[in-house]
């Protein structure tokens, strides 16, 4: 039975940004699409929430760093209402003594940076050049589908291309990259830099989102991956109205392609007939038929819960079961009846991305505490005051602060229930150090621990990367070797969430690349035809 008497070419499970990107691109390819979202609002981890009446902030993700221009253009997101409040948001390392450090974006800023850190300036330039060269080598891989498992020719073409590209940027690039793969960011920075503050902020970026400390092997590679992902985007940007604005524009794009969206519709299972996808069954018992189901839910949930482990072979099931995703970041959103005043920071920089990560030692310590199921007494964090650039977020003269707290464990000794207060106190105390008086103007706040993020936004384990950035979980190995190219063992079932290549962050790339695969593997005629054969 077709729901509401309508027939669909495709059903997209999940109305997060990747699900919506997939739906919009399917619509562009003239498929009739229905998006089903379990919660009563769209957006997943990319939403704008109300902290208290009149105060809005991006609930989880708070900065667009890697959103491709291609998607913005092809889906006409500008026409659908996407505007930016700030472009090229700078990064500042906050210093305990008020001597904050701006990571330079221009020649002028670099001159100031060199004057401040004469010994590290040249090393920083070399570090950036190296990082960008490696990232440029890998960046194209993040923007395209990984080769099909077992397709030796495609893999050979890909590897040869990397070698050629490396050759063009100097013969030693490849060897240096090979060394950097297993290196730790801490060792790498210790070898080249002196300033603890500079090392702290660079290592923060390489470790954020994961649980590994700065001295864990492989964290240097994470820095390269992050840079390569940034290259997909157009610089760090703040959308007007917060992250929810991106999702609103995407939803409008879906509607413009005559796609439909249903919220509050939780999928109970994926219907399989004759070994192929036939549609989905909702929790209310109704069935919606379509020959193509594209899921932006987590790979584990999709394959093990909605499809069911018995339909899979043991190998893929084991691959999906371990490791269990575990987020390592908490989100704190604060509403302020006034402007926070940061000691030692020029007011025009209040809208910057402010990093509290004073040294490698403190970062390492925070990760060690995290690994033992606690949080550091001095939290390492990323602070943005988005209302500086975007007046729509708070009443006139009032502000909101959006904070990512690095190394926050999913499971905590004594439980989150009893430790929540202490956690917030520590974050506010740390804020007070940099912005004295901020506690006095606080009127409301919300905290999202990793379990909260899991419950409220449906991200397994509260892990917004849906699987850490590791070599064994990237490209064709993401989310697992058996599902490395969006398709699954069931004809008509595809994955399109952050669990698939190229991974987490608000990029839309998994959604886009999944649709590219679908169009190649299931040409329009095929889905139509099968649809029309069904009895009305």
């Amino acid at each position, binding site marked *: 039975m077709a729901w509401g008497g309508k027939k669909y070419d495709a059903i997209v499970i999940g109305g997060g940004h990747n699900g919506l990107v997939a739906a919009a691109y399917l619509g562009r390819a003239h498929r009739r699409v229905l998006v089903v979202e379990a919660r009563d609002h769209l957006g997943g981890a990319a939403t704008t929430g109300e902290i208290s009446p009149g105060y809005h902030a991006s609930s989880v993700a708070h900065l667009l760093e890697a959103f491709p221009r291609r998607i913005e253009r092809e889906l006409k997101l500008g026409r659908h209402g996407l505007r930016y409040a700030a472009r090229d948001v700078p990064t500042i390392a906050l210093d305990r003594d008020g001597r904050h450090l701006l990571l330079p974006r221009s020649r002028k800023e670099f001159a100031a940076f060199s004057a401040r850190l004469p010994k590290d300036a040249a090393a920083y330039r070399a570090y950036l050049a190296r990082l960008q060269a490696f990232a440029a080598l890998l960046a194209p891989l993040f923007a395209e589908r990984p080769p099909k498992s077992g397709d030796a020719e495609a*893999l*050979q073409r890909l590897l040869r291309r990397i*070698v050629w590209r490396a050759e063009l940027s100097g013969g030693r690039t*490849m060897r240096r990259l090979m060394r950097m793969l297993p290196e730790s960011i801490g*060792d790498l920075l210790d070898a080249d830099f002196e300033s603890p503050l500079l090392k702290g902020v660079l290592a923060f970026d390489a470790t954020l989102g994961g649980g590994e400390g700065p001295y864990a092997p492989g964290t240097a590679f994470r820095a390269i991956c992050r840079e390569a992902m940034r290259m997909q985007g157009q610089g760090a940007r703040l959308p007007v109205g917060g992250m929810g604005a991106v999702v609103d524009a995407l939803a409008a794009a879906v509607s413009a392609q005559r796609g439909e969206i249903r919220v509050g519709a939780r999928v109970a299972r994926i219907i399989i007939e004759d070994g192929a996808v036939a549609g989905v069954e909702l929790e209310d018992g109704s069935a919606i038929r379509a020959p193509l189901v594209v899921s932006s839910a987590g790979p584990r949930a999709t394959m093990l819960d909605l499809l069911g482990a018995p339909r899979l072979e043991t190998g893929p099931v084991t691959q999906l079961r371990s490791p269990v995703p575990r987020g390592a970041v908490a989100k704190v959103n604060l509403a302020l009846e006034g402007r926070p005043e940061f000691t030692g920071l020029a007011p025009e920089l209040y809208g910057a991305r402010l990093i509290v990560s004073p040294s490698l030692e403190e970062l390492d310590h925070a990760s*060690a505490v995290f690994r033992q199921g606690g949080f550091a007494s001095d939290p390492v964090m990323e602070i943005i005051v988005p209302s500086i650039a975007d007046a729509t977020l708070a009443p006139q003269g009032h502000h909101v602060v959006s904070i990512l707290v690095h190394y926050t464990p999913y499971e905590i000794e004594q439980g989150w229930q009893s430790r929540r207060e202490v956690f917030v106190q520590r974050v506010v105390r740390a804020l007070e150090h940099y912005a004295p008086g901020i506690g006095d103007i606080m009127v409301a706040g919300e905290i999202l621990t990793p379990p909260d993020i899991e419950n409220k936004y449906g991200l397994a384990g509260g892990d917004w990367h849906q699987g850490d950035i590791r070599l064994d979980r990237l490209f064709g190995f993401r989310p697992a070797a058996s599902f490395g190219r969006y398709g699954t063992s069931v004809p008509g079932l595809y994955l399109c969430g952050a669990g698939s290549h190229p991974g987490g962050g608000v990029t839309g790339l998994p959604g886009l690349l999944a649709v590219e695969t679908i169009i190649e593997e299931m040409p329009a005629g095929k889905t139509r035809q099968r649809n029309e054969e069904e009895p009305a």
Partner: protein
Amino acid sequence: MVRHDAIVIGAGLNGLVAAASLARGGLDVLVLDRAAAAGGLSAEYEIVPGFRVPRYTLGSGGLPARIVAGLDLPRHGLRFVRAEGGVSFFPDGAYHAAYRDGVVHRREIARFSRRDADAWTRYRRDMLRAARGLAPLLGGPVRAPVKGFFAGLRARLDLADRIAAIAPEDLADMVRFSTLPLSEFLDSYFESPVVKAHLASAALMRGTLGPSTPTGAFRLVVPWLAETGDAMGGAPETLLPYGGPAALTGALLAVIAAHGGQVRMEAEVTDILMKDRKVRGVVLANGEEIGAGAILSSLDVKRSFLSLFQWRDLPEGLVERVGRVRMKGVTAKVNLALDGLPDFPSLPHGCPSLAGGFRLAGYIPQMERTFSDWRHRIPPRDPLVEVLIPSLHDATLAPAGKQVLSALVQFVPDALHEGAWSGERRDALGDLVIARLAEVSPGIEKLVLAREVLLPNDLEGEIGLTGGDIAYGETTLDQMFMNRPFPGMGSAETPLGNFYLCSPSAHPGPLVPGGAGANAAAHLLERRKGGR
């Protein structure tokens, strides 16, 4: 000035393997060492008269078959005892013994989990496959970086083609091996905490990674490298030189002597003479100068470059690159003279696995804590200890009825966060190890006639090993293979003409005993054959 074809600095295992290979290759070789007795790290000593153990190493482990055969060591008296794979004891009284026989070994695992007994076959197959995959890399020198634009490009494209040709499952395995933490890797095979801890503890020994550090899975394959794969189906065997490491040293010295090589002890090299960026001889502490066509150093990479040379003689940037090599002490040695054979009541009587040594393991979370303490430079509260009682199978090592016990304590920092390694703390570590031993062998503390605790800085002070790092440089993947000892060198040949590195600071590091010595000698012999 007297002149030799080659001078080898250091009479440890690798120095002697290099010297023996060169002597057999027809070169006139001189080995110089500042110590009184040959053997280096595994030199034997007496704890008290009549009780002999290797001073700094555990005493297990052999040489790869190709080196044993290539140097004709059996003819010079070397024999190996093939022991079972060892035992792990746990604080709650559990134990896990390893057997070479697959049926027995699986039955042992089935005591903890039937599913794990089945998984063993899969695990063993994957380990052997990984070991075979690594063999060509470890069995010889890393190929020197190809020079020239087109040749380099061709080599890299060939490599890309070879990778693309690997079967997808093998490629996935290779990536998992080189990226996963070992605990996560083991989780994908086993469920029993005992089985996992037994395998993890063996892999953690002598390394600087914890159970949940990425890339640690790589170390699980180490015990399998020497496994010949003859179809017993069980755990890899433990090789023990009959007569201890001293017998190994003795056989190598005999080969050197038989081919006209010389070994001079108590001859410390203080300087290397240079001419046109090439080495041409050494200066001894007594001022004596000896010329050499080539010099091979079996000292660690830092000593080799930073203490033997005048820094101004070294190429630009070399001092910095050598300085960046990470060397960290991670083990202490505890040697005991025992008044009799300790009893292990929890083990079945006469358990043959004991001959392969045992580990006081604890479970994985405990190892993680110990690792974390080490990283924060805190003395171990719950050390991981590997023990060998060499006198069990070699009665000559102790007076009749008595025993010697050799223990390697893992995760002992070389320097402390607070204070220093004082006599008190050294004693406390000794007491702790004996207390842990007494948990599995009640009454052992009453058998102790004498003991000695050797900390990482003792190794540095006594034999000059930087940081007391018995791995001669951290064995993380960024310091292995073509990156060992540092990127850009990646082979026994150094940037200095006629100067070779033959210690485990060079490829293949400590993974293949004697491998670095054999590599350096092979390089030099090939060069001479090439007439360069």
